């Protein structure tokens, strides 16, 4: 079984500042890792994913994440945030080849202030 921990429930930052949203996971098998974003009153949108290969993955809207197997982490980063990045961000994990069973973290609310 897998589990996901998002260490920060809320992250306030000023516009144009860098941001890192932390995600750690636990699993006894190989995993796929995902970040989803949920804008207010909307569904979930896939931001980026790690399936295999390069540990640095780039997603939409200038976000990137790095898979660190030794630290079981998949932190999300953006060098300069915009007001429009204000949203809730969910880290999720599934067992490689499991064809479903996404396990979500509790989410991190990113608030970008002018």
């Amino acid at each position, binding site marked *: 079984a897998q589990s996901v921990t998002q260490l920060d429930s809320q992250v306030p930052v000023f516009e144009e500042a860098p941001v890192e949203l932390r995600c750690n996971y636990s699993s006894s098998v190989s995993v796929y890792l*995902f970040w989803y974003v949920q804008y207010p009153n909307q*569904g979930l949108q896939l931001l980026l994913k790690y399936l295999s290969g390069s540990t640095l993955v780039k997603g939409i809207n200038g976000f990137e994440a790095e898979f660190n197997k030794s630290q079981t982490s998949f932190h999300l980063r953006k060098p300069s945030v915009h007001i429009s990045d204000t949203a809730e961000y969910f880290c999720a994990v599934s067992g490689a080849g499991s*064809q*479903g*069973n*996404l396990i979500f973290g*509790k989410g991190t609310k990113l608030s970008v202030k002018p």
Partner: protein
Amino acid sequence: SAVISQKPSRDICQRGTSLTIQCQVDSQVTMMFWYRQQPGQSLTLIATANQGSEATYESGFVIDKFPISRPNLTFSTLTVSNMSPEDSSIYLCSVGGVGVETQYFGPGTRLLVL
């Protein structure tokens, strides 16, 4: 990625009634999933719905409370039966498939039970 729509987008219901939520996909998909997102919480998988077979429910969810239909490869419904205020949540469908590691989500149905 698939385009997913849900109906209704939101509803306010009286306790003791039932609501059926529809999920439509613009392409044929093997696996459809139903999630619940309670207020201020993360997403929890309710069940996996494959066409031509009974839905598989996660621990804590039962067919009598959340009956699911999957009549074809592009459509599914979730019914929330005999509702109580505790059922007030966002219900989201997602799609994946054999060999498809990534799930894509619909916009969600926001349900308020009075």
